[in-house]
């Protein structure tokens, strides 16, 4: 093999691997990405049943209902529109009424969002970024969402705890 042939083999191999990788990436980008919507955007876009997307918004106060065998329903709103959500399973630790939430799933024929994943990837001081951005855009952002909780009165710490220091 000449030097040139060796080099060509090498470049050929590299190009082949890159082409395969590019094909895989493009294919996967077409099939496996999920878009983000708020209830208002769902109403505007007329998303059909069965199309997967991520729904973000605030869990409406008083809308959480627990059914049999871990079935839960709640309503997600963004100030403009609301959308009922049904989910079966354990809700994350940080799931609360009045707080931001992101659910992934699809609408069913009855217009209910069937979620298979519910994320609350944020702590008490932190909204999911997508939700916060969407709320800000619609002018429903209240500054106190991002505010830190009040300082807890430290005097209430039990004396038994103090002894454990």
């Amino acid at each position, binding site marked *: 093999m000449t030097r040139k042939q060796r080099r060509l083999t090498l470049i050929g191999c590299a190009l082949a691997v890159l082409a395969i990788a590019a094909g895989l990436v493009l294919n*996967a980008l077409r099939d*496996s*990405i999920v878009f983000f919507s708020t209830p208002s955007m769902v109403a505007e876009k007329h998303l059909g049943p069965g199309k997967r997307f991520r729904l973000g918004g605030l869990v409406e106060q008083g809308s959480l209902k627990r059914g049999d*065998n871990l079935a839960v329903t709640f309503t997600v709103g963004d100030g403009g529109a609301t959308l009922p959500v049904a989910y079966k399973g354990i809700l994350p630790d940080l799931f609360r009424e009045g707080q931001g939430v992101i659910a992934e799933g699809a609408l069913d024929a009855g217009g209910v969002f069937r979620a298979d994943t519910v994320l609350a990837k944020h702590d008490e001081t932190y909204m999911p970024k997508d939700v916060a951005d969407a709320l800000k855009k619609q002018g429903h952002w209240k500054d106190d969402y991002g505010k830190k909780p009040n*300082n807890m009165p430290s005097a209430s710490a039990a004396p038994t705890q103090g002894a454990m220091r």
Partner: protein
Amino acid sequence: MIAESGHYALVLALGLALIQSIVPIIGARWRDAALMNVARSTALAQLLFVAASFAALVTLHVTSDFSVANVYENSHSLKPLLYKITGVWGNHEGSMLLWVSILALFGGLVAAFGNNLPLSLRAHVLAVQAWVASAFYLFILITSNPFLRIANPPIEGRDLNPVLQDIGLAVHPPMLYLGYVGFSISFSFAVAALLEGKIDAAWARWVRPWTLMAWIFLTLGIAMGSYWAYYELGWGGWWFWDPVENASLMPWLAGTALLHSALVMEKRNALKVWTVLLSILTFSLSLLGTFLVRSGVLTSVHAFATDPTRGVFILLILFVFIGGSLSLYAWRAPTLKQGGLFAPISREGALVLNNLLLTTACATVFIGTLYPLALEVLTGEKISVGAPFFNFTFAPLFVPLLLAVPFGPLLAWKRGDLLGAAQRLMVAGIVALVAIAVVFAWTYGGATLAPLAIGLAAFVIMGALCDLAERIALFRIPLSLSLRRARGLPRATWGTAFAHAGLGVALIGIVCETTWNSEYIGSMKPDDVARVAGYELRLDGLNPRQGPNFREMVAQFTVTRDGEKVSVMTPSKRNFTTRGASTTEAALLTRGASQLYISLGDASADGTIAVRIYHKPLVLMIWWGPVLMAFGGLLSLSDRRLRVGAPKPAKAAARALQAAE
């Protein structure tokens, strides 16, 4: 007083770093040994001051000085001592301070042990190291000063994020940073080589141990983080393809490639230009990871802070260093001489293939991680790229890589014999086929891909053993002779075998966990029994308990199998009063390499509690694999050939012995 001293020490460290950035370079230009030697003393002094600054922050946290904002926001007087210390880097400011401390540590190590480096190379390396350090000192001092005071000190702190109050925080971030930042050394060496315009095999002999060390820490750090997420988050998942995880995986992939290409360069003096590029890319990806995690651009559990000034500042650092080093590369790389010819089928060829596949896999992760960000910036559309994307792109690239792994070490340098290697791997191939057949028959009608993947894993593991067997001529010569040969093998050979086998071990764990994982989700009341994978779990009852800074509800489960009691498991749900946050403490029961996993959901008014129980077969192998890899790396690192410098073998060995004592 302590806070101010810590702050002042950091400013002094910045001053030293600035001197170290400029003076040694001038010294190298003028060929002035005294000026070049400035680098050594400033690097050591810098380490001293940063260490003092870090110690100051630790002291503030331990003594619960709530007049310092950082302590107030992340600590609580009732927090256990361990979490007071680990809480230092459980927040943005502190973790950046840890970052620069480790950077200074590596700079100090090069300064202290680099006596046998050419003087101008050492000067250049330390100067480049100081450029990075200066940028990050500035970042800390301007945007994220951990020593800020509060005008009216509160009496009590706001406590650390409960998810972080875990032993995992003590190990995971320091390990990960030792890995991330460790790659700065190979970066500095690469840039120094470009500045000097000369690069040789000795250069690679220097870079490889540092890269290897960083790689070992990064491997362990990622594995540790994965296990932490597995037991702490309560979802039973160990890898989410979360951008933050990808941020650590990308430097790992590039670093693994660098490790292998540096080998070619050291042994055969080939692939120089590529190795330099990889060194730059690996550290660039570490910087990118720091940016992704620290700027808060991502929606993710790790992004504690959202402050645009920080994001812009790190982005600036990113542009300067990545753009600068790549431009330097484009300008100077053509002057580096290529050397060492090799046929496509040879050890070098195999390592090139390894590099090709690893960097391509790294590129797909890069695209999957940054595409949503880019799309949002360009079109405003929000998308999420989840696990399916990575499963479809990353996995197909890893299959040929794993197939090729056993062949690599069996091929000769320069020109290899593929047929001969295949013959020597016959045993491994047979074992793999048997494994496929057995698993397929056992799980008949189940997943079709899983048995193939198990076969692939068996091939990788057996391939590593075949290589060893071949080298010690097992069964061809008397056993005692083989054993003597085994003792004589270079440690790097053992290291390679362990690291490659670790890949196979991890793959078995991954396949078993994802394919044959069984779960039970439901609400249970006391005396209810759940059945999962042949185990019976009875809920005995729920008991409240008081912890140091939380209250918890402990559920007790009695686990039986075939009527025999196995153990008791106590998952709990903790409520942290200060933050009003709750965490789920999963209970784990290890049986061999498999685990039972229970996590609790919400308790409802009628006395039932939501329960999630998993049986995860062979799940521990997922983490044993990386540990094996790291152990292999450690063996390789202890090889005399790689010991830093190692010009006089006998003396170096004696010194290492002393150090070990």
